[in-house]
């Protein structure tokens, strides 16, 4: 009887918590799929292979689901006037994280449409860049989860995001240097540079979210 009462009393809250967790799960999943997509692209000779197309499709699906989920969470937060003090921060956080998923989708579509031709000697470094970016995003997801449950731990994860972003910067710089030092035509050099930037962009977005999270956290701890 008591359990039932407690359920009905906080049922709506639990459901919303579950939705927020699910949204973060989607970001985490899309991060893994995006990285796998880049790997398949490089290993299987461009965007024509099925493995890459499948990842693109999965990220596309997740993007739509995440958009829908984010809208529902936002409406719920506003309709029920929940967390008045942190509501604006929470909405910004969700929007920013959702944007990261959009970037995953846009990048994979760009790879699919434009088919940039990376020389094989650059593959390893490009994969490392993708890995550092993915790690930055994963740490951002953990930082966001901490912001919701364990504010004191947020700082540790933000620190990692910054570290991975810095690493990604280094790889991107090295890649671009090697591209422009190569014998490729200028048009291809510019084309590849753009795609290196796209992979690096993910870590930059993760860092931006982390910077805002640091501020939201200060507001909650104060």
């Amino acid at each position, binding site marked *: 009887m008591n359990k039932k009462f407690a359920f009905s009393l906080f049922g709506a*809250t639990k459901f919303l918590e579950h939705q927020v967790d699910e949204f973060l799960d989607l970001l985490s999943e899309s991060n893994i799929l995006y990285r796998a997509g880049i790997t398949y692209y490089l290993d299987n000779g461009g965007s024509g292979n099925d493995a890459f197309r499948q990842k693109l499709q999965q990220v596309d699906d997740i993007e739509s689901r995440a958009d829908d989920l984010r809208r529902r969470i936002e409406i719920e937060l506003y309709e029920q006037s929940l967390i*008045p003090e942190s509501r604006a921060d929470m909405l910004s956080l969700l929007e920013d994280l959702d944007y990261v998923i959009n970037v995953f989708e846009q990048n994979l579509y760009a790879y699919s449409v434009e088919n940039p031709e990376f020389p094989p000697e650059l593959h390893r470094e490009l994969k490392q860049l993708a890995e550092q970016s993915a790690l930055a995003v994963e740490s951002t997801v953990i930082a966001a989860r901490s912001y919701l449950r364990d504010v004191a731990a947020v700082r540790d994860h933000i620190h990692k995001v910054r570290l991975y972003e810095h690493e990604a910067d280094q790889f991107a710089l090295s890649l671009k240097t090697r591209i422009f030092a190569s014998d490729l035509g200028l048009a291809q050099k510019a084309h590849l540079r753009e795609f290196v930037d796209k992979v690096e962009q993910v870590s930059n977005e993760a860092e931006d979210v982390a910077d805002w999270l640091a501020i939201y956290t200060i507001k909650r701890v104060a």
Partner: protein
Amino acid sequence: MEVTTLLFLSSGLFLGWSLGANDAANVFGTAVGSRMIKFASAALICSVFVVLGATISGAGAAHTLGELGGVNAIAGSFMAAFSAAVTVMWMTRLGLPVSTSQAIVGAIIGWNLFSGSATDLGVLAKIVGTWVLAPVLGGVFGALLYPLTKKVLAASKLHLLRVDAYTRLGLILAGAFGAYALGANNIANVMGVFVHSSPFTDFSVGDLFTISSVQQLFLLGAIAISVGVYTYSKNVMLTVGRGLVPLSPVAAWVVVVAQSVVLFLFASVSLEHFLASNGLPTIPLVPVSSSQAVVGAVIGIGLLQGRRNIRWSVLGNISLGWLATPLISALVCFVALFFLQNVFNQQVFSEVQYKVTGPVIDKLAQRGYATASVRSLEGQAFTSEMNLMEELAKHTDLSYQERYEMAELAKMSPVRIDPAKFEEIRKSEMLTQEQLAALETLAGRSFDYPWMLADALGDQDPAWKFRTANTVNKMYNKELRTKLDLVLNTFGRP
């Protein structure tokens, strides 16, 4: 019911409205200010629980019949309630949280000055004490509880949304309890003075329960409080909850809890009685009022978060409001009584005789006073308490408080125990069987002074005897005093 009674009742309802408009902020100000509870929801919860508190707990026999009881003419009571209500309404317009009780006490002091009655200095000390002690205690408890609550929340690692849900529930529960207490404690101030002229009769709902006439009267007062909450309380709520210091939802909850803890520990006669009866050391009771404690708690948390958060100008205005409330109320009451008496020809106070007689001097001697110098006044009668006090000052070197006590003893309030009025007493259901029996043995007798009646009743039955004044007996004596007042009011001769 007479038209005049109805007219006079209106000032009680006006006071109820003012009380609702101002004091609801103590209960729900921080919840509404921090946007955790919508004003409409807060007003609904507050109203429902004020009505419940007033009708269920407000009508108990042990409750005093209100601080306005000292005013001895209904036109005077009307004006005292009216002055207090006008003052509180004005402060509410300015968005300032003030103490309605202090406005009432201020008005009574205005009436005292007008009628030549002396004012108990203890009451004044209580008001001034509240300005200092209540905010300090509120601040200390707020500053202690806030970091503690945050630590507990951090350790529990609850989801942000769950903390929000729990805080909201906490604010609603604390608000509901606060509103219940507000109704129970203040209804006597609003309606107490009209208890004897209640226009209602008891009625029963089947065999389930009976609603007494007093409860119906209190319900009416509680509805007036609720209307005040709905129509006018938002301003003060926003001052308390947002104007002074921007509060987080958790801080909002801590403020309400800190206020309740301060009131419970430092103003609860029941707790003191419980501790004393069990041989435990008691916490000294100090004058605290919820308006002041709430503001103190908000400032305490504000200081903890950094002084820059506090809007000092708002705090300055609130402090000025506290100082001004009893003063303005007294002034308004004094001036209004003058008009009521001289322009509208209303009797705003009953002429009271103060006579220093042999029995009074003997009673003084019994209480351990040196009566030799008082003997020179034996047989003299005075028409105002202040005149007697002045004479006592000339002839004795007693302190103000001692002279006040003597004057209170010399205050004549003729009482005749008229058997025809026993039914009225019985109907009030306030006296025990023994007390009723003792009263009946005095049928037909007359007494010049209230204390004479008290002594005579005490001689008849131990149930009428005051116990030695100490912490354990405080509640018992207070209850007995209320019963004695009932007898005096019922049998008093005009």
